[in-house]
Structures are given as C-alpha cells and as structure tokens.
C-alpha cells in the first residue's frame, strides 16, 4: 500500500561529509539514498525500518531506503537529503525564478523490498541512458 507525503530535501551533516569523501563511494549512497519518514507514516505504510521503497512524484521515480526521521517528529513530511536521488522526484519547475522547487513536492511512497538502491554514479548513468524502470 502506498502513502502520500510532502517531500522536502536539504543538507545533512552525513550528506556533507560523504560528499566530500567522494560521491562515488558507498557512504554517499548510505547518507543520501534514503528517505526519512515519521514513525506515524511508517505505521501507515506498514513497513519495517530500513526497507527499500519506491518514491514517485509527477516528475519521476526513485528507489531509496526508508529510515526513521532523525530530526522529527514531522508527520506527513518526508525528507531525502539533497543529491541525485532526491532530484529524480522533485518539482523541476522554476516558475520564472530560475530556482527549481526543491521543497514541497507531493510524493507517493510504496514498499519495494526487492529493488536495489543504486549508487549516485549508477543512478545518473542509468537515468541518462533511459535504463531506469
């Protein structure tokens, strides 16, 4: 079953450290290939912590690992740290300001236990070549 949440993105210290350590390394995927969900939303979704989920918006879709909110509670709001995973689903419209709408994208989250979370380079490469589901 799928739940609807409001997605925001942004910096986390783990994102910053692993980005400087190298975006090709697994630590970057661990830091940013995640979605932080409120415990209440986990309950609605009916998923265990650390399950892979598919996040889908009007603009795209991506597989990330669902983890419990580290800076909550924030029921109804989900958080993917800034990076290629978040950018698959955020609203790219700038509404004549030049700034894509990185925060406040309505998304659907559903369990996708058996699908893999790609590394940043893999994700971008596959996306550009049209190899993503």
């Amino acid at each position: 079953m799928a739940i609807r949440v409001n997605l925001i993105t942004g910096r986390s210290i783990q994102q910053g450290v692993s980005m400087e350590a190298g975006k090709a390394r697994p630590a970057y995927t661990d830091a940013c290939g995640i979605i932080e969900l409120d415990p209440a939303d986990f309950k609605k979704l009916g998923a265990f912590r650390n399950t892979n989920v598919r996040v889908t918006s009007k603009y795209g879709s991506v597989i990330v690992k669902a983890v419990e909110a580290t800076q909550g509670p924030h029921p109804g709001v989900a958080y993917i740290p800034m990076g290629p995973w978040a950018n698959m689903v955020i609203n790219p419209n700038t509404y004549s300001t030049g700034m894509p709408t990185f925060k406040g994208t309505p998304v659907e989250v559903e369990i996708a236990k058996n699908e893999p979370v790609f590394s940043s380079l893999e994700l971008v490469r596959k996306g550009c070549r049209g190899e993503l589901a």
Partner: protein
Amino acid sequence: MTKTVTDVICPFCGTLCDDLEVVVSKDGKNLLEVYNACAIGAEKFLQSQAKDRHTRPRMRQEDGSWKEISYDEAIEYTAKMLADAKKPLMYGWSSTNCEAQAVGSEIGEYVGAVMDNTATVCHGTSLIAVQDIGIPSCTLGEVKNRADRILFWGCNPAHAHPRHMSRYSIFPRGFFTGKGHTGRKMIVVDPRVTDTARIADVHLQIEQGRDYELLDALRVAFKGEQLPDVVAGIPKEKIYEVAETLKSGRFAIIFFGMGVTQSLGKNHNIDAAIAVTRDLNEYTKAAIMPMRGHYNVTGSGQVWGWQFGFPFAVDLSRGFARYNPGETTSNDLLRRGEVDAVFVLGSDPGAHFPFSSVKKIYGLPSVAVEPHETPTTEVCKVHVPVAFVGIEVGGCAYRMDNVPIETRKVVDAPEGMMTDEEFLTHVLARVKEIKGV
C-alpha cells in the same frame, strides 16, 4: 618531522572559518591532520590526500569507457567546444577563487556564454529579492559582538554550517555579548525538529511552504494588530510572543536558508523576510543575512557584480550582459534546450540539479573541471581534475557576509596537476587564437 600551519581558511561553506590548524609533512607534500574544522571541512582537507584521486584529464570514449588525455588535449577540446558553440553554458564558479572566476568571465565574453553560478539553485531567489527591495545587512563580526536575538529561518546550521553557531551567532562572547549564549535568545522556524531547533529557546514548527504567511503575521504582530487564531500551523499567542522577543532585543539578526528560497513563493518569501527586518528597525536594530552555501559563491556574485553588473544568470551571448532569471538561469536554459555546450567548474550539477536538467547535459558536448569524481563527471564528455583551492592553491574568497578572505595553500598538489586558474588561462589563450583576437 612535521610542521603545523595555523590560521588556515576552510574552503567548504560560506562561514569560511579562518582558525584551522593543519599538520603537514616537512616537505609540504602530505597533509596529515586537521584541527578546529567541522566534520565536513576536515573531510575535505583529508580527502585531498586520497590515493585513488584522479590527477590527469580523461575523455569519454564511444564505448562508455574513459581514456586518459593530456592537459593540452583537454585545453584544446574545451577551447574548441566553447568557441564553436552558439550559446554555451558556463556554470559553477562557487568552489574556486575569485582569480579563476575573473579569467572564466573573460572566456565567457569571448565565446558569448551564459555565466551562471550555484546561487541559481541556492540563494538566487534571495538575490532577486534584494534587487526588489534592498537588504539591511551586517557582518558576522557585528553578529558576534552585538546580536542578542538570533532567528534561523528555514536553515539548519547544525548540519549545513556546523561552526556558524559557535564562531558567530549563538555561543561566542563578544564585546557587547559578554554572557555568550545565555544572553541571547534563539528562535528557529522550520517544518522539522532539526538539531538546530532542539537547542533553540523557541521553535516554530511551521507548515512546510507557509513561510510567507508566517512572515506577514509577524509584521502584523509587531504592530499589535489582530491575527487569526492559527497562522501556518502556529497559534497566534506564540507569534505575538516571538514578535515581542524580537522587538525587545538590542540587535536582532535573521539568518535564512533553503527553506525559504526553495519553497513555493521563493523570492517573495525573501521579500517578506526583508520587510520583517525593515519593520523591526522601527523598534530596535535589526539585520538579515542569507546563509550562503559554497565557500565562494558570494565571491562569484561579487566578481560578476563588478564585471557585468549582475550577480548570477548573466547572458553574454548578445555581446553585452543581460540578466533575466527564469530565462537566463541554468535550469530553464537546459530544460528548454537553449544551450549547445556545457562547461562546469567548481560545482556538481549532476548531483544537485533536477534530473531533467542533468539528462540534457548528458546529450551535449561538455567539460567538467572538478577535483572529485562526481555525477557531473559521469555525464560529461571530458573530466579535468584540478588542484583544490584553499588547500593546494590560495586565492580570494568571500564569506557569506561579503567579507573577502585570502585562502591559503597548505600542501602541494600532486605533481603536474593544474589549478583552475592555470587551466582557464590556457583555455582563454586558445579561445583568443581560434577567434583571431
């Protein structure tokens, strides 16, 4: 034997900490330890020593593999790509020094490029707002020495600017702020209970995207007028209380971040925040400051400000500088397919642009000048690794409060590696040759 270099500038975020100590080997070739830096800054310094670092340019082959090329070949490809393009996009410019930015702008003029920096996905909307209604701001030194009401709106310095609160805004004891954090009131507005919000005196857990309403409500509250019972998820009593707290201070400062610049409303949110600051000046001294991300994004705005008159999204394709956010900004240009070559330096649009834009870069002739291997280097045709500015080469950078600070070289770059400025200078010379000027 080792030696310690003191007063090193950290080239990570806009806080531009200037008190780092770095231990290097006696011959100055290896960087061994970093003191005083935050986790991100320390990682950046240490990572420059990674054994698997790319030290020579590479070109993507037909079969998708990389082939090592010389710097000369990379310069030739870059110069030719830019000179042949009708309207190239030259993006990034935030993780480099002002000297390199100046050379890059000269290339941009010769080839008729669109010059854009990372403000376009960061504080570009703040710059639009400043052009709309101005900005009453100050330096971080004033914040440290005077500010006793600190408001963080839509920003999370505990994660994004880790030493901001300890160096300037919350904890230090300044000239008129001798009690340190106990003499300051800290207010945080954020839809999440962030680690910054946890240490605040007041946290307003705003409904995401309702910043404009809450900012306007504050202006109403300053005047003591009637408010609805709840605004943006915050009960009116709380809003009156925060308004009173701000008014009662001797010096109030508002720091704002991506929470307001990237949510719907965008530049209008900042308009409202600046108007709040202006109103607050009726009662006490107040200032407002954007929490700039890259260590020298402010500098690229400064350089282009004095060269072209505009801080980002400068279109030079008609032979003179034009500026029209929404038209001359990177993501709009890429999504509409209006550029025919992409040059990236000191930024990672592959990771931080919406994917629809990244896909467009993949389809174009493209060069990424970047010390790391990143999603941008993954989608570009040529990757030119360079020395780290602030670690392996010095140069000027501007802090988030527009104070210029000279960064320092602490260690040698791997042998034979170019700096941003050297690479750009060579490209400029070659572009001039091709153009016959």
